[in-house]
């Protein structure tokens, strides 16, 4: 597994091909928008019965990243659950799995718009986490700096000489990083969307996830 290293507010960070962010100095692994329990929520609210394996798949990938990194701190950057009901109805097996992952390390749930309250799953619940020189929160704030956020599920389209390739991507500039969504049942928002083009500085880069992360100037759209 490879990563792309860059710095934010003096902190050396590594964007991993899996969509997780690694901060070696603090042994901190950060993931965003897990949307655990999404299939349950869709069945409950909409009646469509999606394959109920999304939580298992997301957790499998997260467990692998945690095991590889041996992180001392894990930060889930909000929208960790598709809603509070989905958090409440996670099967026992998956609750135990989360508990096993939490053992022996600090675990922080940042609140997101999908999961705005505390959940009964161990770890610390915070609206945001300041960890100098960085701040972890769910939705980026204009004017902030040293900020790590998620929420938008960014993806980037790259036109290669043979075809257009579209992948979930980190967006990074000198003020902030926006993480791609880590959950299995998540879609993406193109980096050319006005809200992302407005947020990110003109010299921002997009780091495409995949077997090998690739950094490119962030594709921008009209604001």
């Amino acid at each position: 597994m490879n990563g792309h290293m860059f710095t934010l507010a003096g902190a050396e960070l590594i964007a991993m091909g899996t969509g997780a962010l690694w901060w070696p100095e603090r042994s901190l692994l950060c993931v965003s928008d897990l949307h655990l329990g999404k299939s349950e929520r869709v069945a409950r609210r909409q009646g469509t019965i999606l394959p109920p394996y999304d939580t298992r798949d997301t957790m499998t990938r997260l467990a692998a990243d945690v095991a590889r990194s041996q992180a001392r701190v894990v930060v889930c950057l909000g929208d960790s659950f598709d809603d509070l009901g989905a958090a409440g109805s996670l099967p026992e097996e998956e609750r135990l799995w989360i508990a096993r992952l939490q053992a022996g390390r600090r675990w922080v749930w940042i609140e997101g718009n999908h999961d705005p309250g505390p959940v009964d799953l161990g770890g610390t619940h915070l609206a945001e986490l300041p960890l100098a020189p960085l701040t972890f929160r769910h939705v980026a704030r204009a004017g902030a700096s040293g900020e790590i956020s998620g929420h938008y599920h960014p993806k980037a389209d790259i036109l290669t000489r043979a075809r257009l390739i579209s992948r979930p991507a980190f967006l990074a500039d000198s003020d902030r990083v926006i993480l791609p969504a880590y959950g299995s049942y998540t879609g993406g928002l193109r980096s050319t969307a006005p809200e992302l083009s407005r947020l990110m500085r003109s010299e921002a880069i997009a780091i495409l996830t995949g077997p090998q992360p690739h950094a490119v100037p962030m594709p921008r759209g009209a604001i």
Partner: protein
Amino acid sequence: MQLPQTISDWFTAKGWQVHPHQVQMLDRADAPCTLLIAPTGGGKTLAGFLPTLADLADHPRDGLHTLYISPLKALAADIKRNLTTPVTEMGLPIRIEDRTGDTPASRKRRQRADPPHILLTTPESLALLVSYEDAPRMFAGLRRVIVDEIHALAESKRGDQLFLALSRLQGICPDLRRVGLSATVEDPPAIARLLARHPDPCEILLADPGPAPDIAMLTTDQAPPWAGGGAAYAIPAVLEQVKAHRTTLIFHNTRAQAELFFHNLWLANEDSLPIAIHHGSLDRQQRERVEAAMVRGDLRAIVCTGSLDLGIDWGDVDLVIQIGAPKNVKRLVQRIGRANHRYNAPSKALLVPANRFEVVECVAALDAVRAGALDGDPRGPGPRDVLCQHILIAAAAGPFDADDLYAEVTGIGAYAALTRDAFDACLDFCATGGYALRAYDRWQRLQKRADGRWQLRDPRAAQRIRMNIGTIQDTDTLKVRLKASRGGKPLGEIEEGFAASLSPGDTFLIGGEIVRYEGLREMVVEVTRRADRKPKIATFMGTKFATSTQLSARILHMFAEDDWPDLPAHTRDWLHLQRKVSRLPQAGRLLIESFPHDGRENMVVYGFAGRNAQQTLGLLLTKRLEEMGLNPLGFVATDYATLIWGLDRLTDPAPLFDIAALRAGVDTWLAGNAVMKRTFRASATIAGLIERNTPSARKSGRQATFSSDILHDTLVKYDPTHLMLQITRDEAMRGLVDFGRIEEMAARVGTRIDHVTPGRITPLAAPLFLEPGRVPIKGLAEERLLAEEADRLLASAGLDPAPPRRPGWRVPY
């Protein structure tokens, strides 16, 4: 049944005689099922309706008497016109109405409360009617069902859906009589089996097929190009033909080609002949204007696609021109049936090949038509995704008994062999999702009640089920309007993917006009009119053709000749050139060409094995190329050849056909392939696992929705025997062949492989580069492409072209 006096008087007053097959239909008015095969213009539709008119003339009554189903909205509207005239002239008290997606909601409501005597509709609208709780009341007195153009419906899932809906109607009205109307088909008993309630008999009536068509290839002084589908070279010759005839229909294989041809035709139309364009992506009002002008006889020519393919009675058409090779001989013959609706005169048609390979194809097709060889297209058992949708439709209509529904379904020809286990698996899928992991006890979609019947857990779900009725896989399209302060004139629709490729200022063709893209507002593409001469061409849906393997054998036979004195000189020279720079494919050997073109390495495998086999070959060979590290990027298959492109050149074809290697891991490769994912998306949408994209959902942005590929990959990983994957495989195999057949082909060819490296594109390969239906391969080539492009982009942005991918990632561990 006797013809009532009022009706026979009407025939006499018109000076017409009742056709023999019309009398036969009357005689069989009480038969449970009758299939009439008659040429267009033979009074086929009236033959179908005559028993209804006679019954209602003798026994006037209220309520729905006859249901007529056609594959096209336009056809329902056309029949309404053509039937209302004689009914009015006969003075019969019969109300005739149509009901399609275009019918206003107020009229639709009224039709359910107070149905007409004769209702003309489409399979989708019928399925919707059947999903309402009041269906038993609306259909209570129904006596007859007429399925028009049944040969067209029989080829697709729309037909399966229709017959499933009919099985419900038959449950409501056990004495329902079924009539099918069909153009000439290869295997009438196969159609009859679909139509009849199993195991009812179905009598087949064959009307006089009329004189053989007069069909030829248009020869021009100008040589057609090597590749391309526009046939622009033939414009002057086509215009001459239009001038020499009263009304000409000019058929194209794709909408994009029709647009381009129409545009060029207008530029050359110095006499300003009235010529119009008609295809399915145009706005409804515009289509209706063209249809009305056609009925009035105002038009000299219509440039069109399959939207005019079926039996619409346009009156005075005396010439049909087919641009591009007819990909299917049956369709060609049916299209020719469009010309000259007078029963006793031969239909006249001209084929216009768009490139030189199509000259060869046209010659072979003409041979096949003369030999009376239609392409057979056996359909296999009824698809289970449509059955799943039908179960949901039944649930939307009210609680149902599983035994009764199973009995109804197995009364359909295509589902007669469906086992109870297979049915129960579909029911379980609809109720619980059918997953190995039982996760939805609380949120089941269907629940079994205390009385043993099944019902929707949440009655509000009925609305969502109705919104997703249908089996046509529509690509996402966007409406196109002229820009104006309060929403300008609608022009039609374009594919979302094409719209995404447009930048303000780009021009494209729609409805024969060049328009300029101004922007996107509320998911509507806003354009202004432009008078440019060179548009960027709209790409409409990549049409997938049903194709014919029979032409393959005929063409190989032609290639075996030393010379081709009967072909036009330009095509003869072109074949000689192919023989000089490469070879011509031969039976019993396998020709493979490798050459660079357009910045990529290409290989063409001329198997002449039919599209399904060539498609399968494409899947298997790209697997081997990926394993051999040659970085394939995609392939496309025709009846004759498979073109594969990638980053690296093939030097030795022998390892490609290593049978053990072909077989190893083929299931994994197949499961991950774009063909499977595309099929999964279509089947999962039909079966109700994923919902169609509603305009409102798309407006709210893509972020909330995620690709169906993710669901597919999740199932493959965690529930590989799930019903939806079984269905996907079955459906994909309809467009593929068994791998065993490819293995046999590899074994048969053995070492008789001719690998030619001509250094550049060859005459025979050229047309392949414009084929629709490309299948991307997402292997390691993507990583290399991304790396290349990332380096290039960073360098041009003045950033470090080689970002530090240091082993530093491992440092913290």
